[in-house]
């Protein structure tokens, strides 16, 4: 499952997005039903073939042994899959001295004290974003994260998907060379009570 699309700036965009409301406009190259190894293969092959300029990745929480996500995320597996999925993209972009790596994740778990995996994941994702941004800045590659407010896996309003696409476009635009290492919440201010909004 792979495809590329073109933005208004003629950039090759590749996404891995599970939620259909986000994936539909850009065409997903994978989905949450794939195992981590299958997903990594799909994404890595896609990059080898097409050398996309932009990689938008939506880390989907993997369930643990029991219970309902996100309360019982298998945090380590989720992190490992996220890291693996973007590794090849990073190598390709670094070699080409240009790229946009974009993470999109739910911000809602960061608000809920009963969801510690959400806290840990948000913190890890922020750290990954900033660390990669610092490492890749001299290579023309920017790395940013948008955390989006969601309820039950869906955006909080009918217009949210469009707003999120615009937010992503802000970061992946070819002119956005100077915007890197940022973690932006798109949630109407609901993240304001969380330290992760800093």
């Amino acid at each position, binding site marked *: 499952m792979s495809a590329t699309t073109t933005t208004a700036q003629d950039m090759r965009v590749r996404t891995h997005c599970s939620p259909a409301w986000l994936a539909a406009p850009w065409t997903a190259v994978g989905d949450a039903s794939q195992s981590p190894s299958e997903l990594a293969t799909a994404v890595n092959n896609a990059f080898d073939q097409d050398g996309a300029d932009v990689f938008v990745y939506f880390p989907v929480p993997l369930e643990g042994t029991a219970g309902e996500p996100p309360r019982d995320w298998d945090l380590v597996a989720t992190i490992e899959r996220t890291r693996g999925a973007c590794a090849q993209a990073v190598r390709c972009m670094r070699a080409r001295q240009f790229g946009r790596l974009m993470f999109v994740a739910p911000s809602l778990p960061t608000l809920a004290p009963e969801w510690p995996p959400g806290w840990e994941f948000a913190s890890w994702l922020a750290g990954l974003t900033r660390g990669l941004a610092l490492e890749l800045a001299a290579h023309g590659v920017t790395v940013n994260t948008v955390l989006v407010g969601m309820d039950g896996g869906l955006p909080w309003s009918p217009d949210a998907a469009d707003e999120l696409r615009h937010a992503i476009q802000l970061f992946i635009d070819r002119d956005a060379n*100077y915007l890197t290492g940022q973690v932006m919440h798109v949630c109407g201010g609901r993240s304001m009570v969380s330290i992760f909004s800093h």
Partner: protein
Amino acid sequence: MSMEYSSSRGSLAGQVAVVTGAAGGIGAAIATALCEAGAKVVVNDVNAQRAMQMADGLGSDNAIAIAGDAGRAEDVANMMQAVQSHWQRLDILVNNVGVARDNALRKLTDEDWDEVLRINLRSAFLCTRAATALMAQQGGGRVINIASRALLGWWGQSNYAASKGGLVSFTRSLALELSRSKITCNTIAPGLIDTPLLRSYPVETQEKLRLAQPSRTIGSPADVARVAVHLASAAARNINGQLLFVDGGKSLFARPAA
């Protein structure tokens, strides 16, 4: 597939924006970008001649100049009154005006402390209080505060850093307070930007600063402006209380320039 970008021409059509400190540098770039996106722009600057030149450059149908000190309540009241009488509405406020009076703490005078806090922080308070009263009546608006990467702190910039850090806390408080009025409030913190101030430095200093950047590049005022236009757009109605550094990653690692 073509994606409409929020800064595209006409996306802010029918809206009115006030930009303080808009006669040069980042403020001028923001005013220009807002104008290109379709907004009517009020060019505010303490330098009347430069404000008029800037507004003339944008076109008399698109911009007006209102000279005044945004850190003085009387000037702000006059400006908001002029905005109302000229365009009868206000949708976007960009608190951009700022000054620096750098010095080590032991040499920092009361006057330098007060002046920097007055122009950088009090101006935002005065303008935002007046502007949001209008925005609330209209059913919403956007407040965009221009801080600086210096808010993280730097030698000799205690007054400047305090004022810019204060802007961030001011923004976050207002984001919570004004969200019910459908007014969003966000901060942009530019890093090293190619402005007349930077160009006034010796070439060797400019090069040292560039090399201290993780990106090894210096940003342009347009880099800041495009973020401001996005935050002003309808697509940003759920972006609230955020702080975005536009600094090529410098805020991630404060390596000294020397």
